[in-house]
């Protein structure tokens, strides 16, 4: 009997506010150490936290975007532990009354081997507001640890899923969908290298139908590739341990990207005895229905809605999911489509094909694309109305990419305009047929393969400019006699 893998995620998403969650100090990344550590971040005596409206707004946006319950009243609590990067001796977080509860996220799990791609809904248990800690630097200080409190007090939204995922692929698909969503609705910059989006993954295994197994928590994964590797390794380790007669102890573990292995952190005695209690420095947070409505009105169309709409308009599930993998890409796609109305498939093919390939080669993302959506749409419109052939359009595209310019001018300058004048094509065809009377006879006696020969000759005679569809049709008529 095979093992079932059970995975739940806790994601710390840094909110893209200008200032900290409880003070007016800047949250800009990369400042000199401690230059953004104000009296509140340092927990100097007598300071009081004042909640940042921008952080609450972002939490509400997330709640709306995941169809969650947004608590009309939520409470901040103290999570008590001692560590030098947390000068107060407690982290202000939320415990039994979080701001967001009971949401969900629809994910697309890509095809793997024989298994086709599929859609799945992952439940979100809760999302709560809390403050980040500072950073500890353990090197180069003669046996001391250096503390930088710039990050202390940066607002975080901790997003907790139900243990709904059943494979590493599902966990990665969920993390990616969440990563797309928080950037899409503008609450987090999503920069994983800078730690703006950090994932903790809870993994356990069980026999299907049995109660949940004991979980181990892989902390602080900051890339999807490492997440996949860490889960794969951890699952195998747990299965091997159990099959060899061992048992799993609940533990917090770290993934080492260099070895590809996970290992348990030395567990500190009492590490999880946080003694939460409501923070007397903060009053309950109240969110009115009116405020929620105002924020809901500012939200853009969400990735999942957009994806469904694209599919209704004729795109495949795959194309629709690629185009909604980032808001900038979806925006570019729609602006292109505005220029080439009705050409949704053509626009999708070019964006996912030519444009993406060229961006990859040049190491650019869509926001840096040297061709605007208007330029691209202008070109695709000319493919659609048969002014230029697909291969001619590719030539125009290459020039546009490096030198700029608009489609009509480039088609003209390069002499790529197709001949779509029926009379002109008929004339060419007549000449070809007259010059190859023997081949015409062979064709008519059943040698169908010669059709390609006539197409080639006619194309050559038109210097490649004849509209291929028209040419085919005229040739067929004339050859039929």
């Amino acid at each position: 009997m095979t093992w079932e893998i059970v995975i739940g995620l806790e994601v710390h998403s840094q909110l893209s506010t200008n200032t900290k969650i409880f003070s007016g100090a800047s949250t800009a990344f990369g400042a000199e150490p401690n230059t953004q550590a104000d009296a509140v971040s340092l927990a100097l005596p007598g300071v009081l936290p004042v909640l940042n409206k921008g952080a609450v707004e972002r939490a509400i946006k997330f709640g709306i975007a995941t169809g969650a319950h947004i608590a009309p009243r939520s409470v901040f609590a103290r999570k008590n532990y001692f560590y030098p990067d947390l000068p107060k001796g407690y982290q202000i977080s939320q415990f039994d009354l979080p701001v967001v509860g009971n949401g969900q996220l629809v994910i697309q799990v890509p095809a793997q081997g024989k298994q086709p791609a599929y859609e799945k809904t992952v439940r979100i248990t809760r999302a709560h507001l809390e403050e980040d800690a500072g950073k500890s630097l353990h090197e180069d200080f003669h046996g001391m640890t250096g503390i930088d409190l710039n990050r202390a007090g940066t607002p975080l939204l901790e997003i907790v899923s139900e243990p709904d995922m059943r494979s590493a692929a599902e966990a990665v698909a969920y993390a990616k969908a969440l990563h797309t969503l928080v950037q899409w609705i503008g609450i987090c910059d999503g920069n994983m290298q800078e730690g703006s989006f950090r994932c903790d993954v809870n993994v356990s295994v069980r026999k299907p139908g049995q109660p949940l197994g004991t979980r181990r928590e892989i902390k602080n994964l900051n890339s999807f590739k490492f997440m996949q590797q860490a889960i794969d390794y951890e699952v195998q380790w747990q299965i091997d341990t159990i099959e060899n007669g061992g048992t799993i102890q609940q533990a917090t573990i770290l993934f080492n990207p260099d070895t590809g292995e996970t290992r348990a952190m030395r567990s500190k005695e009492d590490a999880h005895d946080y003694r939460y209690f409501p923070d007397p420095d903060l009053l309950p947070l109240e969110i009115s229905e009116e405020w929620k409505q105002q924020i809901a009105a500012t939200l853009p169309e969400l990735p999942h809605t957009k994806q469904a709409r694209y599919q209704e308009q004729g795109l495949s599930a795959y194309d629709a999911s690629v185009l909604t993998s980032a808001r900038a890409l979806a925006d570019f796609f729609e602006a292109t489509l505005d220029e080439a109305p009705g050409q949704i498939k053509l626009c999708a093919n070019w964006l996912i094909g030519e444009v993406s390939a060229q961006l990859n080669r040049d190491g650019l993302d869509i926001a840096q694309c040297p061709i605007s959506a208007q330029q691209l749409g202008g070109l695709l419109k000319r493919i659609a109305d048969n002014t230029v052939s697909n291969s001619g359009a590719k030539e125009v595209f290459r020039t546009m990419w490096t030198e700029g310019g608009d489609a009509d001018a480039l088609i003209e300058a390069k002499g790529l305009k197709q001949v779509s004048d029926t009379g002109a094509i008929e004339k060419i065809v007549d000449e070809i047929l007259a010059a190859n009377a023997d081949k015409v006879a062979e064709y008519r006696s059943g040698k169908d393969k010669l059709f390609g020969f006539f197409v080639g000759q006619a194309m050559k005679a038109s210097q490649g400019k004849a509209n291929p569809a028209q040419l085919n049709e005229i040739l067929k008529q004339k050859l039929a006699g």
Partner: protein
Amino acid sequence: MSLSTQDVEKVARLARLAMTGEEIETARAQLNGIFDLIAEMQAVDTSGVEPMSHSQDLSQRLREDRVTESDQRDAFQRIAPQVEAGLYLVPKVIE
């Protein structure tokens, strides 16, 4: 409910309080007195009463997301026991 000496020792350790045996016994008696009060309160019928999370019946005031604090690192670090390269230095804490 009655606290044991071990309970008090554990709470003291979590709060990083160094206490002598005598202090622990004093604290234990005091804490047990507090638990007696709690037991008395728990006898009151509170069904239908929303749990209180703050003594004032007000809601949290919110601050606009605008930078108001300037860099005062030099002033703050003047009272720190040890600093280097802008960092506060503390005894090594790596696991």
